[in-house]
């Protein structure tokens, strides 16, 4: 019974990791860009939510109505004015520029909000639980977070494979030159992909902020969790990424249950094991 609880908690946290990973996976799929500032953008959206909830006096979940469009706008502008100029054959410019962004965001947050850790207050929902069966309980908030994660991945899947925008994403990913011949503006498509990625980042950031304390230095660890979920799940598959997130969450929960110092380490070891045994990931998308 104890282990069922541990694994269940791991699965629920894994939903959050899947959201960290989905945005990362999306922009890599469309434009072969790995955004090193991804984790810092998650933390940035947590702070934006903090400021909004404090100044407007609204709840964290309501604040999503403002944080998501705001982050999407930031994403569009970031891609349009900065990151589009780094794309090309050479992989160093995008890496270095997003690395620089990461340092700038981290230190900017440190200047504005100090290194003290803070948390978003969601009210009574934070401590409410539902009894599933026997001695197994789930928190309402982790459950909501998990359902939102499923909805986000499902939504991205729908956008990618069932809409005109998704067709444009896939066309540009397959062959940017031909996509351009079909009257698609690659710069605009890339900017939209980054906007969508940061919209997901905003949702993940708000849930991160409600779930636990956060501070400006937490970004890189979120990037690494997201990255591990992507690789464990297998490149190019959104539901694979989701499964990767769950597996990472479970591995961390088991590690933490054995020894509190092993939580993060257990996640990394699960990642390295997958890399050693099945480097293509658990559910790779078959590509011809």
């Amino acid at each position, binding site marked *: 019974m104890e282990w069922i609880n541990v694994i269940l908690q791991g699965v629920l946290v894994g939903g959050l990791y899947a959201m960290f990973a989905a945005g990362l996976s999306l922009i890599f799929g469309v434009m072969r860009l790995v955004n090193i500032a991804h984790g810092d953008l998650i933390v940035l959206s947590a702070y934006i939510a903090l400021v909004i909830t404090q100044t407007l006096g609204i709840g964290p979940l309501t604040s999503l109505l403002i944080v998501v469009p705001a982050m999407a706008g930031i994403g569009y502008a970031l891609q349009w004015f900065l990151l589009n100029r780094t794309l090309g054959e050479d992989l160093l410019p995008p890496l*270095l520029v997003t690395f*620089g*962004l990461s*340092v700038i965001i981290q230190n*900017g947050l440190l200047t504005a909000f100090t290194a003290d850790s803070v948390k978003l207050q969601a009210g009574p929902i934070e401590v409410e639980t539902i009894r599933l069966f026997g001695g197994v309980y789930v928190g309402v908030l982790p459950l909501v977070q998990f359902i939102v994660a499923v909805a986000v991945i499902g939504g991205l899947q729908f956008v990618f494979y069932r809409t005109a925008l998704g067709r444009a994403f896939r066309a540009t990913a397959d062959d940017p030159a031909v996509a351009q011949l079909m009257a698609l503006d690659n710069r605009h498509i890339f900017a939209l992909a980054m906007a969508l990625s940061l919209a997901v980042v905003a949702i993940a950031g708000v849930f991160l902020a409600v779930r636990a304390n956060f501070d400006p230095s937490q970004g890189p660890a979120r990037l690494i969790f997201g990255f591990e979920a992507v*690789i464990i799940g297998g490149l190019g598959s959104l539901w694979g990424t989701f499964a990767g997130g769950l597996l990472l969450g479970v591995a961390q929960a088991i590690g933490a249950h054995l020894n509190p*110092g092993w939580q993060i*380490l257990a996640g990394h070891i699960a990642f390295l094991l997958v890399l050693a045994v099945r480097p293509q990931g658990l559910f790779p998308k078959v590509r011809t």
Partner: protein
Amino acid sequence: MSARVVFASRAGRRIGLVGGAIVLGALAAAPLWGGRDDLALLSEIYAYVALASLWNLLAGYAGLVSVGQQAYVGLGAYVLFALAILAGVSPLWAIPIAGIAAAGVAVAVASLVFRLRGHYFAIGTWIVAEVFRLIASQLSPLGGGSGTSLPADVIIALAPSRQARDFLQYWIALALLVAVLAFILILLRSRYGLALKAIRDSELAATCNGIDVTRTKVLVYIATALGTAMVGALIFLQRLRISPDAAFSVNDWTAFVIFITVIGGIGRIEGPIVGTVVFFALRQTLADLGTLYLMMLGLVAIGIMLAAPKGIWGLIVERFGVSVFPLERRVVFEERKPAAESR
């Protein structure tokens, strides 16, 4: 008519040799003209030039963009502390042993991270460094998460007086830097260097010409780990104190090193030297600004990457055509008969 390949810039080479000898002499004599603080600052500069040169070899020549070299800085430092504290090995011996140990670890790490390509390789190396940091914080004989200090007797055994120790550590730092630069220079002038440049310019063309691309890259990765660990061991021998967060710091040992290399000029041996000078000049004047200084550094690096991707030294080379280290090959045609000038 016959042709032969020579290393370019003969005049530059002479200037480089003479200038290099003068600079090296002056630096080796620094204990005569500098105070204790000067020696400490110079040692730190040497360490950063060495780290940045090694990263430059990895990223600029072998195309392996790693953001996890702090793994080897920390590993080298921890090997030195473990040997000195637990086994009573002299730190002077521990430095080369740390390098060899790191090379051994790098073989195992390479077998994992080389499964990842490009950007994913970068983040994969970072995760390896995080694993090392988390393992180090579980090592209770070395102080666990809060770290430990080198015992006084280990330090005293190094040299009898504080001044002698300062001089000794300074000269080791300088010798290590010279060794790292000489290694890179010899490597790049050898056939491996030619292979590396071919890989940098086009992996496909390099493979077609019979170069084993993966093998060459793995060898560079291991050699870089060896050098980085020795520098790391020396840095923490000078600091006398180690902790997992300091030894495996991504900011200190990777962010700064990457910024230095890119600002100075990636893919050129002079780049990291120029970059380190700029970095320290900025730090000595602006460090009081704290976080603002780091944000400015990030902005400068982004600006340089977008506006002048070859860095400061790249701009100088384009404008004046100089190079201090003779690395570029040039074909020279020699007329057998006493005929008109070929040019």
